[in-house]
């Protein structure tokens, strides 16, 4: 009855049907695939993932242990149109007669996948990192170096509740879900999946009785994006952890219908104007003066929001804080521009947040390779054929000189010989000794040519021949450098903490207790 655990949290030993898996083709080239054994496909092999590195029918991926290297299969991608029509008709007939036959046919299809001569991929379980690399981009993605630091600084721990506003493409959503996941209350209401489907006005499941269940409360202003995220969340088995809400948080704040939600311990705002959302993230209704100061922030001469604030802060009788009253609440805002940061920080200060600080993450990936330099690399790819040392350079120069000398010498001899011949002719007669001489000379010349340093042609030839016996993987100098594409700026991260509210009465109580 319980839904299978999310492949993000507990992927099991094998790739399971109807659950997300990831095909890793190259380091940064990954393809997400919800594997299915169904035959409803245009291909004879059932569902197929077609890639630059070959076609991978789902039948070759399903029930494989995670991490398996999967070989590509021969899939007829050309004539699928015809085939599908034919197959569909067949399928309909079969479906009407017996469903058992249908599965049999599926089996037959599994057999059909023929291993191709080349191409492979690796089947890996989804993680927030792999998902970040292969998710469909809807907005700017929060990448691993940023979200790992944010979650670390926000001290998000299993069982916590985190607000995420501006869900965007959902990379942070997945990372946050992993961070708060504590598996409490695994027998989650099945209603949640249907209920959460169209966001807004739905309540969460009855709350944890004993152990608090970790939760991500995700808000997205853009309705289609919110919907898409909800689809992904369901597909990834995260629906009991992530609650997607389509809402304008500037206006409507963060409180949900459910009394206990979101009860947040941490907040992540990836919004264009985080300072406009901050007024909803307080422990008690902020005083009008503070509201004004927050609203009349430098360079936001908008009387509208402030008027609206005045309304909202006065009209609702029941103020409900979206924050966990028992713990210090931490916030992080993610803004690309320094102006946004200034405004956010000012608003945070006015609203009594502490430990305010701003940070940016500079991350880079390094590539490691072997740099081969030397004359022996002449004519080979991926290496530098310049002289590696001064000695080598000198030797090469000597060789060139040597060759030149030999050739000049030869030339001279030839000329001398010609001159001699001419002279001999002039003198007449005595041809035979000259001939002998010539022969001797030519023989001598050949000997000389052999001892001559190698020509370029010879060198190239030799380099090619030697290549077979060389172990290139350990030759050359090991070097590392920053990868060519560098993310020099992602966003500024503003962090702050809001301590528990502490009143005079609290102080008196504590005083009595501890003295």
């Amino acid at each position, binding site marked *: 009855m319980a839904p299978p655990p999310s492949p993000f949290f507990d992927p099991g030993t094998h790739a399971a049907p109807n659950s997300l898996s990831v095909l890793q083709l190259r380091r940064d080239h990954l393809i997400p695939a919800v594997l299915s054994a169904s035959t409803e496909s245009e291909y004879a092999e059932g569902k197929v993932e077609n890639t630059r590195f070959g076609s991978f029918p789902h039948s070759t991926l399903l029930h494989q242990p995670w991490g398996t290297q999967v070989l590509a299969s021969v899939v007829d991608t050309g004539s699928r149109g015809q085939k599908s029509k034919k197959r569909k008709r067949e399928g309909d007939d079969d479906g009407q007669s017996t469903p058992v036959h249908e599965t049999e046919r599926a089996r037959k299809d599994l057999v059909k996948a023929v291993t191709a001569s080349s*191409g492979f991929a690796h089947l890996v379980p989804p993680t927030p990192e792999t998902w970040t690399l292969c998710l469909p981009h809807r907005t700017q993605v929060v990448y691993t170096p940023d979200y790992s630091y944010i979650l670390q600084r926000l001290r998000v721990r299993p069982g916590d509740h985190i607000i995420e506003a501006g869900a965007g493409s959902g990379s942070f959503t997945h990372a946050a879900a*992993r961070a708060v996941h504590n598996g409490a209350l695994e027998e989650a209401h099945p209603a949640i999946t249907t209920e959460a489907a169209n966001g807004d006005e739905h309540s969460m499941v009855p709350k944890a009785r004993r152990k608090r269940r970790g939760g991500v409360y995700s808000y997205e202003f853009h309705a289609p994006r919110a919907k898409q995220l909800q689809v992904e969340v369901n597909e990834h088995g995260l629906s009991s952890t992530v609650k997607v809400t389509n809402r304008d948080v500037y206006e409507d704040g963060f409180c949900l219908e459910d009394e206990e939600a979101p009860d947040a311990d941490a907040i992540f705002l990836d919004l264009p104007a985080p300072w406009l959302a901050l007024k909803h993230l307080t422990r008690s209704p902020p005083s009008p003066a503070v509201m004004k100061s927050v609203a009349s922030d430098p360079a936001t001469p908008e009387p509208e929001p402030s008027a609206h604030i005045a309304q909202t802060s006065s009209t609702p009788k029941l103020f409900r804080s979206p924050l966990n009253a028992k713990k210090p609440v931490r916030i992080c805002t993610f803004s690309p521009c320094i102006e946004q940061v200034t405004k956010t920080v000012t608003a945070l200060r006015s609203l009594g947040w502490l430990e305010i600080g701003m940070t940016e993450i500079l991350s880079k990936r390094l590539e490691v390779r072997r740099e081969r330099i030397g004359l022996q690399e002449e004519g080979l790819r991926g290496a530098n054929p310049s002289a590696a040392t001064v000695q080598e350079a000198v030797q090469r120069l000597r060789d060139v000189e040597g060759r030149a000398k030999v050739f000049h010498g030869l030339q001279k001899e030839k000329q001398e010989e010609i001159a001699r011949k001419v002279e001999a002719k002039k003198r007449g007669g005595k041809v035979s000794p000259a001939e002998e001489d010539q022969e001797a000379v030519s023989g001598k010349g050949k000997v000389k040519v052999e001892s001559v340093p190698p020509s370029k042609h010879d060198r190239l030839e030799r380099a090619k021949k030697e290549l077979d016996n060389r172990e290139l993987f350990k030759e050359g100098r090991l070097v590392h450098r920053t990868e060519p594409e560098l993310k020099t700026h992602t966003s500024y991260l503003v962090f702050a903490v809001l301590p528990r509210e502490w009143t005079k009465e609290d102080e008196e109580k504590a005083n009595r207790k501890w003295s």
Partner: protein
Amino acid sequence: MHSYIRPHTHIALRLPSGIVKILEIAPNTTINIGKFGSFAANLLLGRPYYLTFELLEKDDERTKTELRVVPASELHAEALGNDHAAPAESRDDPAPTEGGVEFDIVGDDGEVIMRSNRLTIDDPSRQKLSMEEIEELKKAGTGSGKEIIERIMASHMAIEEKTSFSLAKYTLRKSRKYLKRFTVLPLDVGMLTDYLTEREAYKVMELREDTLGLVSSWANIHCSETSRVLTGEDGISQIGGGRWLVVDDTGGLVVAALAEKMGILYPSEEDDDSGSEGKEEEEEPTSATTSAQPGQIATKTPVLPEGTTAPEETSIKPEDLQNGTTEASSNLPPPDPPQDDLPQPTSNQTLSNAPPNPPRPRRPPRPHIPQMSSPTNTLTLLHSNAQPNLAHLKYFSYDSGNPSTSHPLYTHLKTISWLQILHPSEDATYAEPETISEETLATMKSSKRGNYYRKRRRWERTKSVVDETRRGGFDGLIVASVMAPQTVLRALVPLVRGGGKVVVYSANVEPLVELCDLYSKERRAAFVARQFEKPQNGVKIKREVKEEDSEPNTPLFSSYEDGDEDEDFPVNPTLLLAPSLQTARARHWQVLPGRTHPMMTSRGGAEGYLFTATRVLPVEGKVEARGHFRGKKRKTGEGSAVQV
């Protein structure tokens, strides 16, 4: 956790000078913060974290030192004050501008936009107060130090000549010196990391908080308390279940960071406590409950946790074991005794009302929750000394020499030495101690009997951990070690499950560059080629690949130290996919109105690098990458995919 300051926990005090002081807070003691004074610990207990307190020393009005909570508005007064009045720092302080000072930048309406430093005179004599006078003031001063600062500022001859920038710096400098304030911060992993890197970075391999975050992300660390216990195809070895292998030369800092993410770092009583706290709140949300709570709960702290956590642990364990491995259950003493007897010590606890956190001496005859027995959500720590160095876990109430049974790490942290994993037969604790029959036992002295049981238990524990570890199937491997990484990976990568993550941290880049090279594409190709060319050699290499499949009691790693391995391939390069090398650093900024810029100085030292990769199960046989012209084709059906 960290909802308020509890007795017998470690807290961090940040002094005005920026220095952080870590101490364990105990009731009825005095806390001394150096030149700023001292105060009673009870003044902090039960209060929330992140508040800034001001020391009010005793005088005519006060009979003893008191603490005043400094409200946020006061802390931000300087930053906000000038900001609310004017859009920028321009109108900063219009009062003294009448004094005929010249300004460089003046707005259209004659408003001063920025004061120049043209008139600044670098002369210490401009401060009219002498050192003696200041000392006098300090002695006489009863307040928070604000008076002194005010006096100093007032006595500065040219305070109004200062630009707002230099004035701010001046005020800050004086505040750091004289203000009697401090902030109480919870001691969590982030705080501890900052503290340690500041003082003894070399002891924690110069790990920074940003690197720690990155490590745990790439290692896919998460709480797996409820993960399924699944076995591999051999029916014995466990696959996954949220188990990570750790090699930690940072004194337990990495273990702490990982444990925090897995929800097993903080003593469970805290969780339970705050949970019950929450519940009580929810049930009666009418009155000013917040004020009533802290006191009540504080009373319960010593009592409640014992009662609640211990039975929970025992009830969970057998259940988990039933679903899961058959193996581990043999290591448990018959499951009933713990259940029957455990409440006993806890009720003793209640009576004696002992504080929960200082490690209690372990009473040998007490029925036993097996240490290191959790089947899921565990960390297995490899250590190179006879005992693991987990010194930094003391800040989280875990004493590795004498762990309290109520701490979650007691069952979730497993330790195993390199000798035990590679050559268990050479380890004395792995050898089964002799069994003594019940009858003879009955005749023995109780101390001897206790000894006997302790030995048996230690052996059971060691055996179960060693066997489980050697069977592999771990979800990931995290290495932060000064040892050569390839030797570590050679031994441990085979123990990681397919799709598991491998993360290696190093303070310097060179060891990891070498490691990347050992897993390079070219080397992998050469390795595969060699496997085919020389079948005899291939067998040897294959044996390494198949280590996992061997029987648990045969020396799995026999080939490991023999040194006859191909020196070109110290590790099997086909076992890891997408090895990459990265680094990240957080750059901190100062954000003040009109004065926003990156910090002028920060810590240098080691940059800190991360090697990440995914463990994969290579196809046995030759594999052609697409794009190459076809070579010798080998038939490879699904069946031939390797192992596990």
